[in-house]
């Protein structure tokens, strides 16, 4: 466990190095995730996520006004279980940002493997973002993540767990390509098996292929609830 935590911190250390010409954003990212089991095989997932900036520095070192609301996301997905531990789904997201509506269609496949002391999850997502006066943005994403109990071999009611995800987002827009890398280490608490809260960091690194890289650090506070 200690080795794992040390390795995670090491990765994070390299990840968080920010050069003076890099853009930097620091803020809050609360989210609520509600799942509804329609049938043994069908599920609905509703997600609300919001972002508030606390620090925003551009490539010239200029600091923009401090605390600022950025956006709200509302998404709904329909998922079908295709095996014991895997499911496919599709959904739609509406983002409200600077008074504008941005639309996104999402397709997803996920797979969870169970090991004795941890669970490993793979997720592949394709999405298309539609925005007024902008070419369609296509993204192909792969995320790998695990959770491990901080007490015992699995996190039971009233216990904590560590979750870490690492995601690679290939972004195509108007003939240009960008890669975004995300690393999300969080600590979760199991209220009930179907009711969990998480607190941690969402570190994102993008625009480093062309132009000034952007680092975003969001303090993540999440609630997962299944009905």
């Amino acid at each position, binding site marked *: 466990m200690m080795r794992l935590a040390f390795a995670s911190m090491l990765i994070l250390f390299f990840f968080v190095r920010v050069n003076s010409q890099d853009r930097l954003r620091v803020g809050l990212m609360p989210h609520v995730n509600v799942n509804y089991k329609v049938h043994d095989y069908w599920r609905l997932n509703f*997600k609300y996520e919001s972002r508030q900036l606390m620090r925003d520095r551009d490539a010239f070192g200029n600091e923009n006004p401090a605390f600022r609301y950025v956006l709200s996301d509302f998404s709904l997905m329909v998922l079908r279980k295709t095996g014991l531990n895997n499911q496919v789904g599709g959904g739609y997201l509406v983002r409200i940002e600077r008074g504008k509506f941005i639309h996104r269609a999402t397709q997803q496949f996920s797979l969870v493997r169970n090991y*004795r002391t941890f669970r490993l999850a793979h997720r592949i997502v394709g999405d298309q973002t539609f925005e007024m006066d902008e070419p369609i943005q296509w993204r192909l994403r792969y995320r790998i993540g*695990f959770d491990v109990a901080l*007490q*015992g*071999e699995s996190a039971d009611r009233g216990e904590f767990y560590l*979750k870490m995800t690492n995601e690679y987002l290939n972004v195509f827009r108007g003939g240009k390509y960008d890669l975004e890398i995300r690393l999300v280490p969080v600590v979760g608490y199991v209220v009930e*098996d179907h009711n969990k809260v998480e607190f941690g960091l969402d570190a994102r690194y993008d625009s480093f292929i062309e132009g000034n890289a952007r680092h975003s650090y969001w303090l993540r506070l999440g609630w997962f609830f299944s009905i």
Partner: protein
Amino acid sequence: MARKQYRNLYPLSGCGCAQLFFLFLAFFLNGGIFEPSLCAQVKFEKETRIKRTDVPQSAVRMIDLLELDEKVRWFMEKSENGVSFEAKYKRQNRLHSIEFDSIGRFQDAEIDIREREVPEEARLQIHHHLKMEFDHHRLRKIQRQLTGPEEDIRRALVKEMIPPGLTVRYEIIVKGRSSGETHLYEYLFSDSGEIERRARIILRNTDHLIY
């Protein structure tokens, strides 16, 4: 009367290069071979890691008598049936779990084994039963369960041989598909491959890993 003989506790111990290669391949292809345990999913109980000093003395004494070089981890389980204690360690690359009741009396010993280590007669019988119950099935995890006098169990674990007097059972996690539905089950088979217990495993929620 047929004379019972000692059986090797690890008939297939050791792991050749070819096996290692296939395990490596299976891990990356997610083929399901490299899935050492699914115990985490059979959550009828709450399991907490505890210190050796919090374990009843008689349980600690039995483990000490095994004179293990391996690291022993202690767990306390709380379930509807009360409190129990479990010592876990790895030997010959297999997980050993020794279970004790709330006052430290020995209950049983479970050792992870491979399918080929189940005697052929029992293995055929197990598959026969599973074929009757499912359209398709796959064994995901097998544990050899030993019960009997504590002294005999201890001798079996030290000498790595199963003496004739011990009761051997097989606790098997099975992925089974019937009528188009796939679920995980925990079976307890007798030494001859007869079903003694069957329970469907309730998988823990994974929403926080997917979304």
